[in-house]
């Protein structure tokens, strides 16, 4: 049984009207004067938009920063894969956008499960991000007059998305990476590449540092700092097949959770509607086709169940443009959760397309006829090429085949308004925290949040924490807690290497993924979740008894890296299922089959579930404890989400 702790979590939301909270808070927070900044060490883990942004900005401000990434270069972080764009409430299109509208769209898109004050701040900061990125030389798309161009994304009725072809994440990340490179050269930031954080170190209940394994030499080292920032991304790879890069993992935030940080809304995962369907058993990942394609592509399946004909043989009146039919107001641009479920429904009905009947069409024929092929090439050329390389089919001639795939995790470490976890001095930014997207993230909002956290919010709030430590001795790496944490890491490594079982890490990961996808994926039921809660621990035990790793601990050993990450995914998967079981409602990406309307829409229960579930670790084999942060909506009226 879940122990329900009623002690309220304090999100430390500043008082006053919502539009003034951030400004007021910035004034109220203590500052660290420039000469004092170099007295403080800050560790940043991860070099995606949030991590590289935070590390570079803290370096610019004059703090002593150490940044760690398991990649060979900070530029490889998974933010680089984001395609479509970044939202900002600039209202450059004169189409009715505003900070309040971006705030409102994000709250509504998140199905009223996010924190108002955080989301409003995100919308406020969004405009500064575009200014900052442009100043850094990010080559955003332009109109002929030289002004910035915009496009539209799912779940909104304005054009507020800025983009750089289909490579917006790449260009924004390179901007942050270059800012970071500048600080590395200036000596304010020390960078550690091919270095994986494997433990958080606490001294007197506060974050004091980390344990890191050098992935080339295997050397385990400890690093002390006044504050530790986790910018380590999301955990969609728990499903094995997802749009995430292969190395994306939960280890950093999971280790923090095991040290006492609460984990919020683990079951809120986003299944992205437009990915290339799986083609065989050995597939290693699923590839996203940007949501921006839904601006010009029309989604359809044949009317008839089991219609095996090619797309061109199905006449228009024999096609079901199911999103346009069901959601006339938003059409093909409904939010991701809605689009994904609708696609699953038609495929489950037996109307799927492609060799395995596991996809729906995304068809550009009308757009090509209307705008001409060059216009489509300019907008989506690189995506079309990528599609052709993977499938061997030409999307200019045949409609793309797409199907939903795990993509983003709204859940993450619980943080307060200052982005601090429940461990003092330990921060979580970007996808690693839970705060802004509720139960469903809108397209082009992940880049916005990563950079808002990294460039603007964390550098301000971390100063307030550091200011309180002025004049006190900093954490010492000689404290026994460091040696103890390093010993734990080495023991875990040794245990994995000594198992000498009969199955590979990938085999276990794939099997785990199947369980989580089936029972905690696009549709969830109490029976299924209970079944998963039986199967996951059994498979986990088998993993620890029967996994086979070769090579040593003192060399580059990619199997060992994977094994450590998969071990943590096993524990996380269980927590996701528990969370999904407790949440007896459907909201956003969390769809409980028991809770739906007569026409299959999500049925939310605001009476009982307008809260953030924050889970606490209670030792190996212990039951995690649940603490609730009640969500209050003072600035938007909570309604049933409708995109009809």
């Amino acid at each position, binding site marked *: 049984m879940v122990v329900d702790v009623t002690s309220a979590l304090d999100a430390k939301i500043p008082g006053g009207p919502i539009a003034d909270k951030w400004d007021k808070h910035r004034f109220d927070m203590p500052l660290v004067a420039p000469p004092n900044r170099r007295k403080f060490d800050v560790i940043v883990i991860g070099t995606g938009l949030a991590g590289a*942004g935070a590390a570079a*900005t803290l370096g*610019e401000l004059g703090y002593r920063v150490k940044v760690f990434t398991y*990649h*060979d*270069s900070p530029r*490889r972080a998974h933010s*680089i*894969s984001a395609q479509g764009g970044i939202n900002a409430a600039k209202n*450059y299109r004169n189409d009715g956008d505003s900070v309040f509208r971006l705030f409102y769209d994000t709250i509504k898109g998140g199905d009223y499960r996010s924190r108002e004050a955080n989301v409003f701040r995100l919308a406020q900061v969004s405009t*500064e991000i*575009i*200014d*900052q990125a442009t*100043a*850094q*030389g990010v*080559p*955003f798309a*332009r109109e*002929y007059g*030289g*002004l*910035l161009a915009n496009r539209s994304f799912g779940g909104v009725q304005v054009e507020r998305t800025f983009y750089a*072809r289909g*490579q917006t994440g790449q*260009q924004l990340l390179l901007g942050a*990476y*270059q*800012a970071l*490179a*500048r600080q590395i*050269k200036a000596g304010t930031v020390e960078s550690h590449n091919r270095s994986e954080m494997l433990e958080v170190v606490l001294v007197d209940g506060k974050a004091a540092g980390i344990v890191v394994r050098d992935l*080339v030499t295997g050397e385990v080292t400890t690093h002390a700092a006044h504050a530790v920032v986790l910018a380590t991304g999301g955990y969609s790879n728990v499903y094995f097949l997802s749009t995430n*890069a*292969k*190395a994306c993992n939960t280890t950093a935030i999971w280790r923090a959770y095991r040290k006492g940080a609460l984990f919020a809304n683990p079951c809120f995962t986003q299944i992205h509607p437009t990915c290339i369907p799986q*083609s*065989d058993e*050995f*597939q*290693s*990942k699923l*590839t*996203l086709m940007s949501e921006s394609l839904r601006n010009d592509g029309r989604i359809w399946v044949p009317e008839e169940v089991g219609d095996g004909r090619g797309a061109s043989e199905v006449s228009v009146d024999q096609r079901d443009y199911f999103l346009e039919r069901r959601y006339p107001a938003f059409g093909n641009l409904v939010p991701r959760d809605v689009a994904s479920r609708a696609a699953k429904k038609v495929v489950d009905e037996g109307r799927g397309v492609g060799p395995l009947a596991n996809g729906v069409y995304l068809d550009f024929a009308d757009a090509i006829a209307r705008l001409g092929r060059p216009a489509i090439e300019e907008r989506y050329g690189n995506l079309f090429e*990528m599609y052709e*390389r*993977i499938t*061997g089919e030409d999307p200019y001639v045949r409609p793309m085949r797409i199907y939903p795939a795990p993509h983003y995790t709204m859940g993450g470490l619980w943080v307060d308004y200052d982005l601090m976890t429940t461990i003092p001095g330990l921060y979580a930014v970007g996808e690693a925290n839970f705060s802004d997207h509720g139960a469903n993230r809108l397209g082009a909002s992940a880049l916005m949040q990563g950079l808002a956290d990294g460039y603007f919010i964390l*550098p301000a709030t971390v100063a307030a924490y550091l200011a309180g430590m002025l004049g006190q001795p900093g954490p010492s790496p000689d404290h026994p807690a460091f040696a103890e944490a390093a010993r734990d890491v080495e023991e875990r490594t040794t245990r994995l290497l000594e198992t000498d079982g*009969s199955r*590979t890490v*990938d*085999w276990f990961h794939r099997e785990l993924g199947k369980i989580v996808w089936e029972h905690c994926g696009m549709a969830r039921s109490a029976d299924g979740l209970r079944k998963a809660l039986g199967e996951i621990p059994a498979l986990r035990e088998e993993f620890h008894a029967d996994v*086979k790793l*070769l090579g040593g601990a003192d*060399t*580059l050993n*990619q*199997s060992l890296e994977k094994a450590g990450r998969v071990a943590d995914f096993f524990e996380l998967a269980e927590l996701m299922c528990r969370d999904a079981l407790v949440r007896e409602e459907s909201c956003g990406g969390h769809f409980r089959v028991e809770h739906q309307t007569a026409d299959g829409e999500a049925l939310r229960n605001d009476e009982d579930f307008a809260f953030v579930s924050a889970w606490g670790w209670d030792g190996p084999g212990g039951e995690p404890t649940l603490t609730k942060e009640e969500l209050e909506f003072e600035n938007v009226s909570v309604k049933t989400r409708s995109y009809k």
Partner: protein
Amino acid sequence: MDLTLRVWRQQGPGVPGEFEEYRATGISEDASFLEMLDVVNDRLTLDGREPIAFDHDCREGICGSCGVMINGSPHGPQKGTATCQLHMRKFSDGDLIVVEPWRAAGFPIIKDLVVDRSALDRIIQAGGYIGADVGGAPDANLTLIPKDVAETAMDAAVCIGCGACVAACPNNAAQLFTAAKVSHLNLLPQGQPERWERVSAMVDEMERYFGSCTNHGECEAACPKSISIDFIALMNRDFIKAKWKNRALAARG
């Protein structure tokens, strides 16, 4: 399909390596090249042989982590395609495929197919940025940038930093990588204040690790993003101008 792989195996930096041959049977044509290596690695592991180490991550051709020589070509036979986006349908049943790491003095081998490309980071650190601290940026639409300028800057900015250009070059020059970043920033109005210093510093840093360009053009052919060597011409022009400008400043005392 059934294949024979001849793969470079090397335990660590500075130790001798050698080719080993493996049979890769029953590979799906729809598999990517790296998925084929995944299958081989799983089989090697179960046979008690250490799997092949190779860098990879996004598998969407954008992170730049992956990259191996496939039958002597960086990223293999398909033009404009990174190793992770190369699919086995580009090969034939019964093929022998030779797989090697990037071969360049500037990229020391770490293990098997994994090389150290940190020299590319150091070129960026030398000047591949626009100095714009967070906080001081003007409104983004204050600077008008003609569409074709923005598009050309973007053509250069698409570089993924994989290092294929260096591996392809008979001189192991890193001109295309460096020129792509220099051009991206030097073409934009925001990049003008640091334009001359940037190109000097980046070229100087590049020359510490890599060979000289003698216009073979192999880099453009190997680039998974098909970045044009026109950018090298642009960089060279800026480099020469920068030297003259610096000399003029020096003469002024």
